[in-house]
């Protein structure tokens, strides 16, 4: 210790324990040395006037800065480490924001009209935009003004030419302390070097917190004055669960937090060990717990959370983001990506579930009064065999690369299954003729989401290899409730006795006919529903990837015997509320864990 150094504060002052409070944005505890990333230089903006003859030059300077900013973002996107690749979407959004009218055109306008320098014009425009955001009541949306700050900082950096700290070059394991981290900054970080995050700004829904949670490192954000209080190499404790930051912890505090840290890590290890274990009940029945995805990138999340496969691959996305229809090769590439990564685990590809509103040309101009009961899903596909065939061929080709099942939505009559199979066979024949690689020996399943399909399940079972119950639509159609309608949404509940009886009917038929019954609606992803679903005899559950560990954990703590006995009672109940009460009375203590 530097007792003799006059320039230092007395020891007891320097090393006094300081506690700061912020938002616990990512749970966990870490103890380490601080590393400050400060963005000085961008804060002070000079204002000066530009000669009329130099205005074009000033505009060009601004355009060049934006161009540099776009290029820099693009190269960051390309070099993002795999672990955070899922989050590059926000960086793409920033690229779009850089050229947004409100920012780009307005700044150029301001330069010209007010004859000011580009920096000042940009600052003025951004300040105006921020005022508009102040009146937003929704906290998440309000924080979107951060996105605009990040984008304008990036342009400003190129205008002023200030140097950024390159956080890609940190060379030891540290706790990162910054005023704020833009998504671009966060994605440049070498993950193995960062133990935790502390920032002055930001909150639970900010991008840094999403990244921190994905990386599973603790983060305390919105501390306010962290960068002013903390110095480089200070010893720091972060408790991301309670949102506390401790600077210069005393020996006692250190010991206390070391103990907490160990306990937290043990619990985390327990859960993540659990997520990869089989979902097997105490009396030895194992279930497949699968993930629902929409984009190929989400496969990573399913695997991370211990999913046994893809129980529902929604294929609408490629159709909705464009005005024409995607081609076969394009679809095939996406499907193949997913199938290859998951192999040998199954990937259940649901065929297009879209409504007729998707018009490529004005020829299909009629508005439907009642789209939920209109031309959608399989009805639409059978009416447009040209579009359907393209997808079926892409699926059959992808099936050559792994374990594919095909799932057809909105089946309400047997004819629809037969017509679909006919098209599928034709697609296979055409691929054979063209000598393309494909696999037609794939399981063929139907969605059970229309009441007629429930009633006719025994007939449907003759033509299908499996059923997948889509609870969202089944509940909507059975109870005649539109969930989007606030007046009636409260009546929507999966525990309505009619729904339970319908599911029971389907699983009974499944057993009798020897075909498997899966569930892929929201009902499948809530641990609260697991006892009843086990008791009803569902063979496979598919849900949002994040729900997988909790559902698996629930399955492992139950006995099928108990759930069957319980379900018998549940089926005797006559109102939704009675069913809920019975679940709480029988299994309530397990949900508290």
């Amino acid at each position: 210790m530097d007792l003799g150094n006059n320039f230092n504060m007395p020891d007891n002052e320097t090393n006094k324990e300081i506690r700061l409070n912020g938002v616990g944005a990512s749970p966990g505890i870490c103890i380490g040395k601080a590393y400050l990333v400060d963005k000085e230089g961008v804060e002070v903006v000079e204002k000066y006037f530009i000669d009329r003859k130099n205005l074009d030059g000033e505009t060009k300077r601004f355009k060049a800065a934006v161009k540099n900013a776009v290029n820099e973002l693009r190269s960051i996107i390309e070099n993002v480490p795999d672990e955070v690749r899922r989050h590059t979407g926000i960086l793409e959004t920033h690229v779009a924001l850089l050229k947004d009218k409100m920012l780009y055109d307005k700044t150029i306008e301001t330069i010209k009209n007010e004859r000011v320098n580009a920096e000042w014009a940009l600052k003025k425009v951004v300040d105006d935009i921020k005022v508009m955001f102040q009146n937003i009541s929704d906290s998440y949306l309000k924080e979107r003004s951060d996105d605009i700050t990040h984008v304008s900082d990036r342009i400003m950096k190129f205008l002023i030419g200030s140097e950024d700290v390159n956080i890609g070059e940190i060379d030891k394991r540290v706790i990162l302390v910054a005023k704020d981290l833009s998504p671009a900054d966060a994605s440049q970080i070498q993950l193995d070097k960062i133990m935790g995050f502390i920032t002055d700004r930001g909150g639970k829904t900010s991008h840094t917190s999403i990244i921190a949670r994905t990386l599973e490192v603790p983060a305390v954000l919105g501390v306010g004055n962290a960068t002013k209080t903390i110095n480089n190499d200070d010893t720091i404790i972060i408790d991301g669960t309670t949102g506390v930051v401790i600077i210069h912890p005393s020996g006692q505090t250190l010991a206390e937090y070391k103990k907490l840290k160990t306990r937290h890590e043990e619990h985390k290890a327990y859960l993540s060990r659990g997520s990869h274990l089989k979902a097997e009940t105490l009396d030895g029945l194992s279930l497949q717990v699968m993930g629902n995805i929409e984009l190929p990138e989400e496969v990573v999340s399913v695997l991370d959370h211990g999913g046994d496969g893809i129980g529902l691959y929604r294929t609408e996305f490629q159709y909705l983001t464009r005005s024409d229809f995607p081609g076969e090769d394009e679809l095939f590439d996406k499907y193949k990506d997913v199938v290859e990564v998951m192999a040998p685990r199954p990937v259940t590809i649901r065929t297009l579930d879209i409504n007729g509103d998707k018009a490529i040309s004005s020829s299909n101009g009629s508005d439907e009064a009642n789209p939920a009961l209109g031309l959608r899903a399989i009805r639409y596909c059978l009416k447009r065999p040209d579009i359907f065939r393209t997808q079926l061929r892409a699926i059959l080709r992808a099936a050559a690369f792994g374990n594919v099942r095909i799932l057809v939505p909105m089946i309400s009559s047997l004819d629809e299954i037969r017509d679909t199979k006919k098209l599928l066979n034709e697609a296979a024949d055409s691929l054979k003729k063209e000598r393309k690689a494909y696999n037609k020996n794939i399981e063929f399943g139907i969605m059970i989401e229309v009441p007629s399909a429930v009633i006719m399940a025994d007939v449907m079972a003759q033509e299908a290899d499996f059923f997948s119950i889509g609870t969202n639509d089944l509940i909507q159609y059975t109870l005649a409730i539109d969930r989007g309608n606030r007046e009636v949404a409260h009546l929507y509940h999966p525990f309505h006795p009619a729904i339970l009886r319908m599911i029971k009917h389907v699983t009974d038929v499944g057993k009798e006919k020897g075909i498997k019954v899966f569930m892929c609606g929201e009902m499948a992803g809530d641990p609260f529903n697991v006892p009843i679903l086990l008791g009803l005899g569902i063979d496979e559950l598919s849900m949002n990837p994040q729900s997988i560990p909790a559902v698996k954990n629930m399955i492992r703590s139950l006995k099928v015997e108990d759930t069957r006995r319980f379900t018998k009672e549940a089926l005797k109940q006559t109102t939704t509320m009675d069913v809920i009460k019975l679940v709480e009375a029988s299994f309530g203590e397990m949900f508290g864990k």
Partner: protein
Amino acid sequence: MNKGSCSLLKSVIIKNELGLHARAAAKIATLAGRAKDKIWLIKDGEKVDASSIIDILSLGCSRGTEITFAAESKTDFDLLRNIVIMAENGFGE
């Protein structure tokens, strides 16, 4: 609003958990940017240019908000429809 902009209106309720956020706004703005004439986004009588992400974000449309898209030109009707379908599908989330 001028007379022409009233004829092509379509409303939708925001379903996304986080509301109409930056990525969703970017998707709308990209499509609206292809329109021949202007496409407007209206919330509670406030009208903004649907081809600007910032304008859209400034409305602060949280989950459950009803918003209306309006096209000025008939030729942009398909585009308007596609934007609405995308919104109805929760912007693919």
